[in-house]
């Protein structure tokens, strides 16, 4: 019955446990490099909380598993056992195993499996205890019960101050049977010397009724060591073996009911700091005030009050903007949740490849939109794997190159203007131009590297189907290339660039928008329609004259831009909205945009201004449309579509290829 009301806390329990596991993992990794007591405490605390929660919320398998890990940690904490690599390894595997258990808990599946059971026994063996399953519930020695007891109860001085109240105990005894209470007053001091919180009273209690000794002892279980207690049989009866004050009151563990399925259904949620909520509430308050101020104009308006109206409108604009920023802020989470997985990964990879890697994490508190955060993990993992696999050298090679044995891998996140920048840098060998050129030639990506700048060569690694590893290891291999990394980042509205110096290392720079929910864009008119072109992908807009245009065979149009020729995409053709659209290139405008590493010109009728657009999903409301990333509502209430520049370029490439 209690499970019903407890299910509502499952999601919170899962979320905080994930955080706990992350904390355990990073502390374990730190411990690996020579730890201190606080780290062990932190790990212990996390394990302890998970165990307590698991037991309380009805996950006995998880509680049993964590119990063993906790016992081991307890030995570390007490100094009964020294931290060594083996234990760290075992505990790290336990963290992984618990993650698996949580995943199964969320899916409503049985938590324990052969793997977890084996690991549990390993932990138990490490603790030096019998790995036999724990008995579920404590048995309560419940004998027939005697009909009369004599209890001598003499509290020590400090018992009352500690909150243990004889009145409570006597009330409980009275529930067991009839009481006769005789106080012992001999030790009462003089009033002047009495410290009221000290206890000087004692009692002899006669309890009549069919009561087991354990039932009496449990009344006094909190005051063991705080009183002198003797429980004697008053009348002849069978001897009772149970000792005083050892009656554990655990009865729930054995029959913990299964979590209900519906509770396991995962709801996506964000944990928001109370300060963020408070600031929202403040802002809404401000808005309400402004609104009521503006409301006064309803009663009548004259020219004298125009200044007040302007003031009110300015205030409204300011508050609306602040409110928007605050609401967006709710979705912002620190990148630490992504960075946290790397210490473990880097350690494992380094061991596997025989490389020594020091990982520096910088700017972990930099906040990103939750959606961006969720999707940036895979590209980052790939870049980190790549840096360790291809970038950093083995200690031998590093020594030969005059560098220290230990390579440095640095992940740094920061805010730069309206963007988030994540840099992955290593002090490894840098890109090998010859190897890249050879591979690109072999793959037919280029005809010749003659005259290609180092930057242009470096760009080649982002081309589909490119891989420089002589032997594909199971690390960077996996059939995923740098082209996919770039694709993923571009899909998030960002970009990846690389800088590399031979012998010194490489830096991959990922630039990401702060949020996916709002974009800055230029509003373009095409016929009767409005389109938003994201500002991030715009290079510039130009008005073309005839001589800058060229038509190539096959119907493609090119225009001269700086030193080269770029293809033109007529938006009215691409989106099929020719009605009312200008067809003469010279009459309209060409917006030069960049995406997928390529530039094209988008032909539109005219530009009417820059604006922030709140992105509404087309997929959610209609269906996915090639070349369109979403829609937004304009100030006049009409709908404008947001151009997906990268998608449009891809589509145009396919058309050209066909």
């Amino acid at each position: 019955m209690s499970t019903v009301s407890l299910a509502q806390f499952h999601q919170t329990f899962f979320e905080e446990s994930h955080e706990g596991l992350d904390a355990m993992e990073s502390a374990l990794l730190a411990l690996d490099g020579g730890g201190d007591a606080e780290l062990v405490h932190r790990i212990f605390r996390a394990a302890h909380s998970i165990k307590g929660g698991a037991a309380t919320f009805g996950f006995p398998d998880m509680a049993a598993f964590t119990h063993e890990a906790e016992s081991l940690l307890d030995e570390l904490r007490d100094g009964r056992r020294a931290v060594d690599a083996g234990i760290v390894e075992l505990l790290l595997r336990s963290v992984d195993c618990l993650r698996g258990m949580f995943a199964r808990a969320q899916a409503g599946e049985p938590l324990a499996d052969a793997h977890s059971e084996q690991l549990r026994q390993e932990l138990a063996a490490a603790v030096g205890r019998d790995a036999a399953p724990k008995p579920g519930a404590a048995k309560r020695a419940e004998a027939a019960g005697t009909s009369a007891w004599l209890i001598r109860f003499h509290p020590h001085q400090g018992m009352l101050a500690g909150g243990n109240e004889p009145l409570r105990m006597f009330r409980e005894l009275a529930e067991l049977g009839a009481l006769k209470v005789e106080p012992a007053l001999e030790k009462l001091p003089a009033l002047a010397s009495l410290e009221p919180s000290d206890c000087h009273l004692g009692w002899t209690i006669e309890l009549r009724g069919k009561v087991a000794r354990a039932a009496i002892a449990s009344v006094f279980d909190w005051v063991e060591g705080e009183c002198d207690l003797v429980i004697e049989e008053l009348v002849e009866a069978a001897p009772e073996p149970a000792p005083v004050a050892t009656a554990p009151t655990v009865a729930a563990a054995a029959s913990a009911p299964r979590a209900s399925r519906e509770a396991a259904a995962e709801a996506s949620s964000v944990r928001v700091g109370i300060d963020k909520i408070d600031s929202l509430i403040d802002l809404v308050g401000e808005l309400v005030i402004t609104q009521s101020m503006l409301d006064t104009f309803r009663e009548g308006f004259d020219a004298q009050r125009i200044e007040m109206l302007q003031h009110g409108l300015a205030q409204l604009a300011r508050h609306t903007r602040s409110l928007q920023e605050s609401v967006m802020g709710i979705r912002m989470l620190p990148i630490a949740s992504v960075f946290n997985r790397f210490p473990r990964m880097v350690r494992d990879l380094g061991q596997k490849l025989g490389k020594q890697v020091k990982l520096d994490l910088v700017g972990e508190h930099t906040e990103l939109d939750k959606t961006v955060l969720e999707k940036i993990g895979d590209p980052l993992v790939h870049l980190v794997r790549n840096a360790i696999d291809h970038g950093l050298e083995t200690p031998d090679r590093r020594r030969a190159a005059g560098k220290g044995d230990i390579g440095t891998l640095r992940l740094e996140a920061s805010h730069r203007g309206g963007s988030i920048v994540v840099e992955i840098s290593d002090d490894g060998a840098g890109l090998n131009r010859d190897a890249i050129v050879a591979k690109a030639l072999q793959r037919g990506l280029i005809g010749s590297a003659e005259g290609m700048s180092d930057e242009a060569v470096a760009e080649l690694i982002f081309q589909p189907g490119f891989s420089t590893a002589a032997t594909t290891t199971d690390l960077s291999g996996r059939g995923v290339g740098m082209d996919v990394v770039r694709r993923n980042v571009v899909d998030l509205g960002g970009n990846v660039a690389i800088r590399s110096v031979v012998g010194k290392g490489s830096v991959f720079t990922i630039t990401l928008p702060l949020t996916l929910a709002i974009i800055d864009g230029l509003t373009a008119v095409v016929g009767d329609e409005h389109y938003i072109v994201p500002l991030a992908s715009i290079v510039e807009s130009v008005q073309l004259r005839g001589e800058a245009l060229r038509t190539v065979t096959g119907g493609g149009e090119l225009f001269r831009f700086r030193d080269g020729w770029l293809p033109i995409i007529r938006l009215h053709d691409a989106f099929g909205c020719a009605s009312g659209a200008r067809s003469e290139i010279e009459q309209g405008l060409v917006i030069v945009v960049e995406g997928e590493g390529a530039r094209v010109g988008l032909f539109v009728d005219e530009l009417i201004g820059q604006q922030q657009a709140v992105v509404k999903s087309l997929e959610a409301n209609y269906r996915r449309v090639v070349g369109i990333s979403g829609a937004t509502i304009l100030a006049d209430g009409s709908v404008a579509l947001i151009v997906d520049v990268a998608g449009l370029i891809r589509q145009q490439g396919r058309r050209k290829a066909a």
Partner: protein
Amino acid sequence: MAKILAVDDSASMRGMVAFTLRGAGHDVSEAENGQLAVDAAKGSRFDLVLADVNMPVMDGISMVRELRTMPEYKGVPILMLTTESHTDRKMEGKAAGATGWLVKPFDPEQLLATVKRVLG
């Protein structure tokens, strides 16, 4: 009903305790660690404090020690929420001035029974 302070760094555990006690009509305040509990206790006099043992910033045992130095918290019941495996921690808590303990795992009924027991 009674004014109760629930102290636990685990939001789910704290939530469960607070939810259960509020359901029984108690006036429940929550604190995330020992330090915040001590701060709360300074501003308000609680009839009962329920606290986890292992917490960051200030653990439950230091919290009890701190509360017991405050004259108005002499004799106020303070229960530690603890797991059965740590008898020594129980004793450490007792030595610091805790009244008793509630063994994890506990369900709402056990919690209510214990609170009723302490508050009389």
